């Protein structure tokens, strides 16, 4: 390890800790879906490459470095794949240096060898990423059924490139935490250990050389958009994590080298892998992340981000307004505190990053999963950028709640669960009346303002809420045609309230000066109609907004129709009555 640095330096040769004479040349990339890290290792007996990555230029760079060290001392080259996902190997498929089995031997778990041998586009994730895989021969299948039947017995193999290796199969661990292992000896130099750690994929392996443990993608296996990929297995993942955590706690490993992102010191790795295990435990019964689900999730991502963009801009705007008024009143400290409740610069940057990404995505007609993953990344960061509990008492709490629910719905869907809908019996008429009342009057009554006058802190809180909360229907002529209740339906109250609020906001925001709501019984259904005269949004925006509202209405337990012309806009929500 370089002195004064707890990281392996990328693109530079350095000693492998805990070995005599092995050195490593890591290519550590910024995390993306295009290509993995690569770790090139030179021992006195062999040149070991762990994951050539997904990009031809990366494979070419590796081929060039391999060429240089072979000139210094020729040794057999063996390319190990931590698993057969396309971002870990596809880069070498068109590079001549990797095309000759008599020179370069590929090694992968026996299951991965089968996947690669038939050029399987499902298990390699090629389908999901819109790519093709050329079938490839794996000269050294690992952890084979044959060898596992003879634990502890070294098996000598002569590979197609002339290399002789000795492979010994056994198991490590005790009780329920057992991992299948193979120990590969290339000569008098250090041995390489292979551990079967399925879960992220059936063929996932970890490799250990001296004090380094190469763990492939297990670190990301519980992430939204990764969990549920073809071949993902929750139970196997948890068993593998238990095995790896036991191994790390047992000593001897000082650094963990993941398939993506920076090399991690032991203590951090134990902490992060334990967190992955906790996340993985919550992922029972998730749907498979296939191309169809990626298309569906990407569409939801765009609709969702459109609304998130609007909600966050409005929330920041409200808060800036409160801060502005406080500044005018000479309350600079309070004004500053208001600005700190939401990290508006970060939010703007995140929203712009997604908007730019989406524009590029459509321009280059990229595969949907990339857009879905980008949205997941942005959503996770947005969740950290605003303090819901402190915002709710100041600005309209329905804005904060809706933003929170939207982010949570997206993460839930991305994780492979159906967006949550908690249906329960509810009187629609009472619900609509309560919502409309809430949107028509100020959150703090005059009486509350008077009562707080003797308490500075309470008065300030109420003042902030009065400034930050603007009843949506305050300046709009509103009528609700009376109907005799109750009208009981099975709905998700939160989502139903949200969809109605979005519709009312859309009408008010685009200039409706009169809004009418009617609720009618239509056979076994209840039909709620919201109409208003409004300046129409442009058609493209309207389509996206409507698609979003339809999805939300379905999650609420109803269905949505829209009729609109230059004169009037009409939204009709149909709900099955109990």
């Amino acid at each position, binding site marked *: 390890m370089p002195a004064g640095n707890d990281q392996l330096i990328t693109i530079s040769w350095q000693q492998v800790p805990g070995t005599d004479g092995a050195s490593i040349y890591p290519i550590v990339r910024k995390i993306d879906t295009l290509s993995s890290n690569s770790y090139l290792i030179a021992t006195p007996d062999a040149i070991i490459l762990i994951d050539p990555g997904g990009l031809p230029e990366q494979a070419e760079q590796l081929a060039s470095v391999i060429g240089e060290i072979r000139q210094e001392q020729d040794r057999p080259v063996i390319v190990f794949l931590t698993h057969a996902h396309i971002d870990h190997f596809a880069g070498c498929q068109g590079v001549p240096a990797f095309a000759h089995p008599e020179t370069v031997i590929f090694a992968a778990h026996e299951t991965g060898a089968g996947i690669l041998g038939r050029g399987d586009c499902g298990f390699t994730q090629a389908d999901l990423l819109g790519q093709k895989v050329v079938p490839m021969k794996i000269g050294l299948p690992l952890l084979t059924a044959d060898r596992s039947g003879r634990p502890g017995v070294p098996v000598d193999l002569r590979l197609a490139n002339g290399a002789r290796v000795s492979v010994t199969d056994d198991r490590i661990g005790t009780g329920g935490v057992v991992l299948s292992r193979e120990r590969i000896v290339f000569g008098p130099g250090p041995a390489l250990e292979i551990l079967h750690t399925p879960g992220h994929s059936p063929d996932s392996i970890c490799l250990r050389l001296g004090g380094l443990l190469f763990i492939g993608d297990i670190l990301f296996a519980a992430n939204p958009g990764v969990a549920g990929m073809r071949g993902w297995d929750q139970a196997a993942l948890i068993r593998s994590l238990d095995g790896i955590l036991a191994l790390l706690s047992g000593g001897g490993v000082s650094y963990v080298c993941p398939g993506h992102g920076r090399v991690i010191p032991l203590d951090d790795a134990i902490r992060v892998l334990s967190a992955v295990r906790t996340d993985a435990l919550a992922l029972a019964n998730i749907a498979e992340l296939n191309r169809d689900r990626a298309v569906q999730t990407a569409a939801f991502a765009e609709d969702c981000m459109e609304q998130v963009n*609007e909600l*966050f*801009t*409005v929330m*920041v*705007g*409200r808060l*800036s*307004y409160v801060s*502005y008024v406080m*500044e005018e009143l000479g309350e600079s400290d309070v004004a500053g505190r208001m600005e700190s409740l939401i990290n*508006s*610069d970060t*939010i*703007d*940057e995140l*929203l*712009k990053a997604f*908007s730019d990404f989406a524009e590029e995505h459509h321009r280059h007609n990229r595969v949907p999963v990339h857009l879905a993953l980008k949205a997941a990344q942005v959503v996770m960061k947005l969740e950290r950028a605003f303090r819901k509990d402190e915002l709710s008492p100041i600005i309209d709490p329905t804005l904060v709640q809706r933003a929170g629910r939207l982010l949570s719905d997206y993460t839930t869907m991305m994780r492979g669960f159906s967006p949550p809908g908690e249906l329960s019996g509810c009187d629609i008429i009472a619900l609509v009346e309560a919502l409309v009342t809430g949107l028509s009057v100020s959150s703090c009554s005059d009486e509350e303002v008077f009562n707080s006058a003797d308490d500075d802190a309470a008065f300030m809180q109420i003042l902030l809420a009065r400034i930050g909360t*603007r009843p*949506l229907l305050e300046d709009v002529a509103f009528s609700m045609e009376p109907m005799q209740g109750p009208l009981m339906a099975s709905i998700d109250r939160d989502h139903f309230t949200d969809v109605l609020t979005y519709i009312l*906001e*859309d009408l*008010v*925001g*685009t*200039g409706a000066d009169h809004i009418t709501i009617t609720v009618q019984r239509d056979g076994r259904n209840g039909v709620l109609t919201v109409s208003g005269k409004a*300046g*129409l*949004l*442009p058609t493209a*925006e309207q389509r996206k907004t409507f698609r979003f509202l339809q999805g939300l209405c379905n999650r609420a337990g109803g269905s949505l129709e829209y009729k609109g012309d230059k004169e009037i806009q009409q939204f009709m929500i149909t709900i099955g009555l109990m």
Partner: protein
Amino acid sequence: MEIIPAIRDGTTVLSISGRIDTVTAPVLEQVINREIEGGHRKVLLDFSAVSYISSGGLRVLLATAKKLKAPGDRFGLCCLSAEVLKILRLAGFTSIFSIYPSEGEARAGW
């Protein structure tokens, strides 16, 4: 984003086109400040070609309203698209500065 400045009847009209986002909002602020520092204290922003405004953009509008509140100063927006009008309304900004359907109506009122 593109900004075309013009002076008509003593009013500085800044015709803006494109998106006012995290990158372009500071540019807009600079242009507005330059006008104010140059003694132009009647500023009208023509938003007819603005398709999007971020929270950074909203803050620029607030900061401008703050600078132009002396007697005789004027600050307003005209020709807003439905999307931008919706954001300004929901954020509560329509009570801070005047919003006009057209440039002519703004200048007639000033």
